[in-house]
């Protein structure tokens, strides 16, 4: 089915969409019927058409987060029929296409749900907890202008590739939404792995993992229960190996940690 014109009647769908006015308000499902949706359009383009329909009917459109619509910005965040980012493996909602659904299908659409991701409106949630975790240590402390020549640090290709695998995380939070404990360990593990696999990350290796895990707990994320739903939901295929690496790094750092002196410049 390549090519791409609407050459048939399209899909007729029943949607149950989570509506919630704001963070404090009580939410509920509303049901909408949508007709003649092309199988070539994306899931978000289907929602665009729903919103145009609602607007025509004088009803307020459904709010959802989205931006790049090519699976890299990490904005989109829906739970579709109970699965974060829907049924396709390694696919963000914005890259999910309607050819995955059949005519007459009923689809449930909900926001990512987690204590640490409060709902802002409808399908939009607040994932700023991830920023606060990064701010505690998800970086290499190097000021602009100070580095040596880029090729002065040779890095084995295997390590660079593994670091890249972890760094591919788009920070969407599907791992949290998919986890029964709402754990953020895949997200944190990916950043810890990215930096601890590289020589640039070594000087701050221990304090980084301790600080990031501390913040992760403070934000109200749960702990890993080895269910691996996170890996299954991850649109970038980030492996649970990164959680193992996080645990190893954390254990090592905890065993050798000394009380931090109050330092003037922080990290």
């Amino acid at each position: 089915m390549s090519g791409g014109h609407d050459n048939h009647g399209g899909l007729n769908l029943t949607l149950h969409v989570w509506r919630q006015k704001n963070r404090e308000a009580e939410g509920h499902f509303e049901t909408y019927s949508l007709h003649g949706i092309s199988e070539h359009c994306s899931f978000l383009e289907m929602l665009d058409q729903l919103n145009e329909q609602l607007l025509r009917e004088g009803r307020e459109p459904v709010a959802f987060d989205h931006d790049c619509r090519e699976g890299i910005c990490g904005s989109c965040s829906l739970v579709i029929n109970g699965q974060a980012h829907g049924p396709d493996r390694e696919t963000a909602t914005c890259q999910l296409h309607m050819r995955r659904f059949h005519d007459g299908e009923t689809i449930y659409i909900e926001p990512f749900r987690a204590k640490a991701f409060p709902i802002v409106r409808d399908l939009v949630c607040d994932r700023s907890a991830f920023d606060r975790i990064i701010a505690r240590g998800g970086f290499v402390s190097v000021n602009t202008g100070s580095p040596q020549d880029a090729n002065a640090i040779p890095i084995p290709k295997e390590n660079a590739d593994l670091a890249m695998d972890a760094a591919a995380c788009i920070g969407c939070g599907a791992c949290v939404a998919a986890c029964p404990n709402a754990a953020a360990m895949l997200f944190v593990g990916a950043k810890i792995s990215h930096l601890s696999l590289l020589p640039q990350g070594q000087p701050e290796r221990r304090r980084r993992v301790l600080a990031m895990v501390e913040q992760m707990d403070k934000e109200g994320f749960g702990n890993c229960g080895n269910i691996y739903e996170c890996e299954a939901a991850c649109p970038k295929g980030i492996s649970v190996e990164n959680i193992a690496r996080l645990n190893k790094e954390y254990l090592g750092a905890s065993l050798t940690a000394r009380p931090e002196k109050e330092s003037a410049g922080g990290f």
Partner: protein
Amino acid sequence: MTTPTTPILDSKCPTGPMSERWSKHRFELKLVNPANKRKFHVLVVGTGLAGASAAASLAELGYKVTVLCIHDTPRRAHSIAAQGGINGAKNYPNDGDSVRRLFYDTVKGGDYRARESNVHRLAEVSTSIIDQCVAQGVPFAREYGGLLDNRSFGGAQVSRTFYARGQTGQQLLLGAYQSMMRQVGLGKITLHARREMLDLVVVDGVARGVIARELTTGAIERYAADAVLLATGGYGNVFFLSTNAKFSNTTAIWRAHKRGALFGNPCFTQIHPTCIPVSGSYQSKLTLMSESLRNDGRVWVPKSKGDRRSPDLIPEAERDYYLERIYPSFGNLVPRDIASRRAKEMADAGRGVGESGMAVYLDFRDAIARDGAARIRERYGNLFQMYERITADDPYKVPMRIYPAVHYTMGGLWVDYNLESTIPGLFVLGEANFSDHGANRLGASALMQGLADGYFVIPATIGSHFAGRKLGAVSTDHPSFAAAERDVQGRVGKLLSIDGKRSADDFHRELGLVMWNQCGMARSEKGLKSALATIRGLRAEFWQNLRVLGSGEELNRELEKAGRVADFIELAELMVIDAEHRRESCGGHFREESQTPEGEALRDDANYAYVAAWQHAGDGPAMSWNLHKEPLTFEEVKLTQRSYK
């Protein structure tokens, strides 16, 4: 429309030998001593490569920094989507690269409509950018020996592009974002997410802050500072369908323009040759397939018109690898403007492929036979996967179908060599400014420019604003803030009260179609004149027939879109006026009236070797602007007809 007198703009470029200008200028710039830096407050709007790198670097220097970003987190800025790579004149492959060659390629690639001094500076700092990013832990691709790998991009005959799989923008942005978040953690940067700048506040002729809307509550907020940096990206979404993210918009720079900042070369738009073709009327955006694919993919169409056979049934002798045929020395790696125009030419001649005929093939058959599927997967795996998700075709087996789409805007707010706009204290970085790419940007140069501006240029040049001017204390209680806030409230109220029939998207689609047809890959006097009338009519209808539901005191995506579309409609008018006034072809600006016998862009250096900078002069049924000119002189790179043959 334009006044007969055209004032000349001063770019403040240094003089003397080209390769010493930046270091000479840096030495002559005034410094701010470390103790005084913390007294100056910088407001950065936008957190893409330019904004995040500027915010981090300025905070490291000791300035007090406040950052506004439109997304829920700064990491989502559209730089994240850049795929292919970043140029750096490291000459690691020993293939003859140098700062001078990158400078030369960029001036030539831009079809001689960029400022030589700026471009040379860009080439100079390109090497430091690579060093900086590697030190941050950006996982660039490496060879087995552990050293950095390079690949080639269009418009160059050397390999100087550093990359992180097909996610270079993401990795560079995360590097800048992480550096910025480090400063947030240290309390040196105050970050406000989900804020949209809706106006610039100018006090006594100097930019002193902005008015922004908190997008989840609708609260209108005032932010005061001693300098304002706009790093809010480009305006390609004026075409509705583009490779830009949906939030990318012109409002921040357009509001600044209407407060007095001149707009440089608004019609210079880059149409990227390799995008996934449009498939239906529901389409909300277009997806780029990185230029890096042209390293290994071969572009072709059938030799005969209307050949509808499946590509595998078309024998070698009946295929036209037209880029290799017309441009034997650059082949598939000609610059973007040329590759796009040639694709359009093939489609217009009835030799396009796919159901609509508005596509050409990008074929990896030979590369897979030569290097094996595994090696190709390693280089482009994520792009192939993205292509398959969208089209349901497997590019390992069937050639990709691609077609040009709007991708980048070389135009933007006019800035001098210090990146300062015509409003003192207002600096513009990255794609939001007009600066370094002339009439066509080369691949892998946007990331380079964004980071050059943020990491290396602004930290040096902003000091002259603080040290060279007497800046009194200004708080948000100043009457200029109250006045700007009233203006914003008035606009928001008006958008909500029209109560018409059409959605913001509906107007936007119509605007985009007019722009694509008349101000896209080919432009003519007749088409531009008709577009101007259509756009003015559309603007009038917009303000009478828009429908926005809900209120201003909540998360209201329709209201947000409406404000952005209102500004896009005004900008479109200026783009068309600029395209009409420039009666030459150069780079991405192709006037049908001005072409060589071979169909290449024909410049008119005697009359148009200048930057067109437009000053807003009035609203009304027809808006008005005054044209200012910055003459371009070429001391190092000789003005010639570009040739990639």
